[in-house]
């Protein structure tokens, strides 16, 4: 039963995420190649530039449930959404909570409830994870800002493109 709710939420919230966050999201290797090639063409790739990759450990099963729901609300409000398909945000949160928190399964002779993370088989878990990461990513911006350096550089290069607190800023600097 909750699958239909999960699908409904995913159907309506995923496009919002895709639209608002496409600039720092990668969909496959080819896209990253094009972006980096562009970056190099503009003379931004220096011999001293380091690459860094990192992997978040067990993202889906580590998502803190209450915080993920709070972040979902923050995300929607931040982008100006007061309702989804005429359903207000409070109800959306309740629906999401139902999908995320009321996850029960039987193993052996016991009944278990999932208290951390989202269901691996749910498409909504992916969208929720992406939204949680959107929030986490913003710290990268804030930390860089407080060190002062990148802010000065961006003002020098593309002052028009500096957008604080939006995850567009990192690419905008070099567009």
């Amino acid at each position: 039963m909750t699958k239909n709710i999960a699908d409904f939420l995913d159907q309506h919230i995923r496009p919002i995420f895709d639209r608002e966050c496409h600039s720092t999201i990668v969909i496959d290797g080819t896209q990253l190649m094009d972006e980096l090639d562009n970056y190099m063409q503009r003379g931004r790739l220096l011999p001293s530039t380091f690459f860094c990759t990192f992997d978040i450990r067990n993202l889906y099963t580590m998502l803190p449930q209450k915080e993920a729901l709070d972040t979902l609300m923050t995300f929607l409000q931040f982008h100006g959404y007061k309702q989804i398909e005429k359903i207000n945000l409070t109800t959306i949160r309740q629906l999401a909570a139902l999908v995320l928190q009321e996850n029960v399964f039987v193993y052996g002779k016991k009944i278990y409830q999932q208290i951390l993370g989202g269901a691996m088989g749910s498409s909504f878990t992916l969208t929720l994870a992406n939204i949680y990461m959107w929030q986490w990513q913003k710290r990268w911006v804030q930390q860089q800002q407080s060190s002062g350096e990148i802010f000065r550089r961006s003002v020098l290069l593309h002052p028009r493109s500096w957008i604080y607190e939006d995850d567009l800023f990192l690419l905008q600097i070099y567009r």
Partner: protein
Amino acid sequence: MISSFYRYIDDVFLTWNGSEKDLIAFLNQANTWDPYIKLDYKIGKSLPFLDAIFTNARGRLETSVYHKPTAQPYVIPFISDHPRHVFRNIIQTTLRRAVRYSSNFPIFQTEQRYIKLMLLYNG
């Protein structure tokens, strides 16, 4: 200082124009922001990401196909009873990816050899 940042679900690729020491310090700090979000990082001039390897060769970008060490060069065996177009597609897609991902001809040739061996291995 980060100059670009890209994320695929839980994998991130970023470029850094500063000292390695500063980057490590920054990553270690990032690991403390959220008790649920812990990252394992790799830093270098040549790194794999998704299914490609990205190399910074003295300011020039080089790319090639990445084969995960733990992945066997296994595709559907030729003798398997799949419709014929499946086998044609395997060859087409692996070659197309080799062309798309290889930033120069020698790299492409290496990948071509790999594909040839893989196809022979699978009959």
